[in-house]
């Protein structure tokens, strides 16, 4: 399978006054299309920084980041926005829904920045996604009227609305209880089975166990890169 994401000698430095903080120290990683990856590591290991770069929210200090065939490491802000809008889907720890919008409007949001005029077809598509995540009865609810698990499901529906090539999760179950976490992970598993590539950051082994592949970072370098075997996954279920 071709690598959908490839980072080569990825370096990220932060400058705090006169001090330079070396966060990523030359990462080399490749993720295949259809993979389900968990990024792990202690705080300060650089996993969030890597996710931000993978999510085109940040640019590396040096090195390359190939998304498909394209090196996005040196793209302008506008081009990165376009990449996020077209190829990426985000799921955040704190859901990050807009409180003034309904479920359907929140799901629709990424389409607005693709220059698509919302019409009946896009509306139907958003409703279908809401049904898929089990919120068919709550289309016109505002996020604050929903539970945490329901909000995260809206966020998942939103991350799918633009048919992304890559879904990025930043501790998607971090704010949820165990039972709801399992629901969410099952949902992500289904998506992965349907062919979506997912990369998520987590610090819980239970959650990482749902992934096919676990990459551990420490001090800006890859510490380990293992594949979960299929049996363990089934057992955990």
């Amino acid at each position, binding site marked *: 399978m071709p690598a959908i994401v490839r980072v080569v000698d990825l370096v990220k430095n932060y400058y705090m006054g006169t001090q330079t903080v070396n966060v990523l120290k030359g990462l080399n990683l490749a993720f295949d299309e259809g993979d389900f990856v968990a990024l792990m590591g202690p705080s300060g290991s650089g996993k969030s920084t890597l996710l931000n770069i993978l999510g085109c*929210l*940040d640019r590396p200090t040096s090195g390359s980041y190939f998304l498909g065939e394209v090196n996005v490491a040196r793209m302008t802000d506008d081009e990165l926005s376009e990449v996020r809008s077209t190829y990426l889907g985000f799921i955040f720890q704190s859901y990050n829904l807009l409180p003034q919008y309904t479920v359907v409007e929140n799901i629709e949001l990424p389409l607005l*920045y693709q*220059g698509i005029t919302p019409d009946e077809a896009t509306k139907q598509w958003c409703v279908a996604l809401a049904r898929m995540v089990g919120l068919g009865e709550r289309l016109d609810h505002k996020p604050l009227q929903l539970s945490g698990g329901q909000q995260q499901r809206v966020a998942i529906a939103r991350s799918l609305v633009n048919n992304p090539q890559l879904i990025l999760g930043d501790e998607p179950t971090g704010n949820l209880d165990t039972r709801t976490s399992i629901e969410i992970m099952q949902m992500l598993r289904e998506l992965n089975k349907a062919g979506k590539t997912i990369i998520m950051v987590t610090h819980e082994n239970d959650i990482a166990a749902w992934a096919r592949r676990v990459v551990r970072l420490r001090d800006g370098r890859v510490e380990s890169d293992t594949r979960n075997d299929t049996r363990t996954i089934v057992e955990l279920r």
Partner: protein
Amino acid sequence: MTALEFSLFSPLGLAVASPALIALGVWCYRWLHRSAPGVKLRRSLALAVKSLWLHKLRAFLSVLGIIIGTSSVISLMAFGEGSMQDALDDIKRQGATNIIVRSVKPPDDSATAQKTWVTTYGLTRRDLERFETLGDSIVRMVPLRIFPSEARYLERFVNARVIGTTPEYADIHQFDLAGGRFLTEADDRDRKNVCVVGSEAADKLFPFEDPLGRSILVRGSEFTVVGVIRDRMPTGGTGGSQAAEEFNRDIYIPLHTSVARFGEVISVRTSGSRMNEKVQYNQVTITVSDIDKVRPVGDAIKELLEQGHGAKKDWAVTIPLDKLEEAERAKKRFTRLLVMIASISLVVGGIGIMNIMLATVTERTREIGIRRALGAKQRDITLQFLVEAVVQTTVGGLCGVVLGLAMVFVVPVVWDLIAEEPLPAKIHVPSIFLSVAVSIGVGVLFGWYPARRAARLDPIEALRHD
């Protein structure tokens, strides 16, 4: 006016300003849509209205400055315009192509008075002949010979102003006849004893009868009433040497009749003292063919009078056009002052908007981060906040227009009750368009910085913001 003055209110100013404004608008639009289709603007509009609706009171308070600014511009302009219009109408009634030459009694003329007991001064037939030399540029000259006198009919009398003049008087003054006719050439040529009376004089002398055809007595001579003039607006004293004039007690007789019946010397009795004056013409109104010739002809007339009268300053030249331009200059100055006040209040309003927008941006940092993560470009964020600011100021400007127009109708009523005098108001249409345009401009100007600040936020930082 020789120099072209630049003013936003003049047609030239508007002609220059509107393409500039349109160009600015197009530039902003292009900047925001370098790569996106135009539907975005409509969507941003809906978005802006929605987020403003969430904070109705805040939005209202933040545009209060704009509302007050616009409404005061519109109402003050209307009242200023109304007062100015009054003054201008007054001057126009005197005729812009006219030059008024009047006889003035010299302050120190004891020499002639002592010798003859008759004061001789003022314009003479010779002066008029000299004016004739100016040729074609003069269309007509209407001399007036004015003296106060009592007029009688039966036991009734009125203190009138007897004015000897020519039929052309009717061409330079606007008035309507209630009945009969004005003086004619034949009346003047034949020195007929006919007169035309003003409305008040007619009412006093003939409360019950039809004045036409009846005879009134003026200084021992009988005059047949041939016409009655309808109620006329008095001219206000518009500064300078031009005094206010009341026409309704005038009695008009042919000029030649006046000289023939009453002689050259007019005695006026005023509470015990007697004054004899020899004045041929009290006033000559000269109409010039073209408005551009008013000033040169006026200068020529002054020169002729200086030659003819020497050191004796017993004449005065009034050019209504001068006063018209003076009044228009005053109006322009007033307008400019108002524009300045307006700009101050609109700048203050704009700062209010900027302040609130900056607070909004901080408050919605998280939202900005989310939108950026979901694919919004910097430009989309700029557009969102800019449109929000512009929607606020535009709605504020329109509210200001409505409030201002309401004030134009309400304030004169209140004014009339309190100050017991009318407050003329005339709605100044360009000020409406201009203040709305300026409100929109203020929105763009003061919304730009907060909007850019919102757009330049680091998406990662913004997402982390609580």
